[in-house]
């Protein structure tokens, strides 16, 4: 971003204080899931707010400020922070498409309960969920976080990530599949569920 002298009117400054600053919790939560570590998340939030402040005269009052800030943050993340970070191994999309958590839950132990999903999913703690989200490939991770943590609509996510609506929907779909697969694996590693014999053989490299 080119350095630009800030010449916000007094009322713009006040509006930034009143409207943008209360969104810091949301922005920090988003930044943490984007960068996956607190130090980078803090830098990203500062960077975002400074960029936003400098450009605030171009924000159209009455439009969605949170979406506008997230768009700035997403761009800042992609252009700066992502380069520093190693991305997790790409999930093969075929493997993801095939995964069906519902099937796995139904199959794993019919004697356990009529609603095994409740038992399995309730046993996962918040750190399991962050771990599963953090393991997602970036584009899936961003879509899932923007939708399920930040409550943006598909149209807003399309705007924030600068992709067509259809792309948002497919990233969300695949991201959730990958997330469910990871959560299932975590539940299995914790011994919350027992994998099938086939699974165990595969995992042992047989």
């Amino acid at each position, binding site marked *: 971003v080119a350095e630009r*002298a*800030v*010449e*916000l009117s007094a009322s713009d400054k006040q509006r*930034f*204080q009143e409207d943008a*600053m209360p969104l*810091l*919790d949301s*922005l*920090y*939560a988003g930044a*943490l*899931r984007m960068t996956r570590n607190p130090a980078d998340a*803090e830098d990203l*939030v*500062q960077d975002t*707010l*400074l960029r936003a*402040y*400098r450009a605030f005269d171009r924000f159209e009052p009455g439009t969605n400020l949170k979406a506008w800030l997230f768009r700035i943050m997403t761009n800042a993340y992609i252009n700066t922070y992502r380069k520093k970070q190693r991305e997790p191994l790409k999930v093969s999309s075929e493997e993801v498409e095939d995964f069906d*958590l*519902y099937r796995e*839950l*139904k199959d794993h132990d019919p004697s356990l309960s009529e609603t095994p*999903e*409740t038992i399995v*999913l309730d046993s*996962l703690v*918040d750190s399991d*969920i*962050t771990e599963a*989200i953090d393991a997602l490939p970036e584009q899936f991770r961003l879509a*899932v976080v923007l*939708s*399920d*943590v930040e*409550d943006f*609509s*598909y149209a807003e996510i399309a705007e924030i990530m600068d992709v067509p609506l259809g792309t948002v929907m497919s990233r*969300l*779909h695949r991201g*959730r599949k990958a*997330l*469910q697969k990871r*959560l299932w694996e975590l539940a299995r590693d914790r011994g919350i569920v027992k994998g099938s014999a086939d699974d165990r053989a595969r995992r042992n490299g047989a």
Partner: protein
Amino acid sequence: VKDHCRQLLQKAYLFLDGEILSETERHEIRIHLEECAPCYERYGVDEQVKMLVARLKGNCRCPDELRSKVARMIEEAG
């Protein structure tokens, strides 16, 4: 999964995500989920996973130190 179920489940995800649907579409989804147990359960699994992820909303507040750093930075920017 049958084609009909697949189509309705896709719409059900829109419903789950709070996307705007017509009254007819919402009705169609409700009826199908009432009548088709596998779709109802499948939808339930996705709903639960979405709720799990949503739990993260409340539990990471911006650290106070960062909040004051940002405030100072903006102050200095003019």
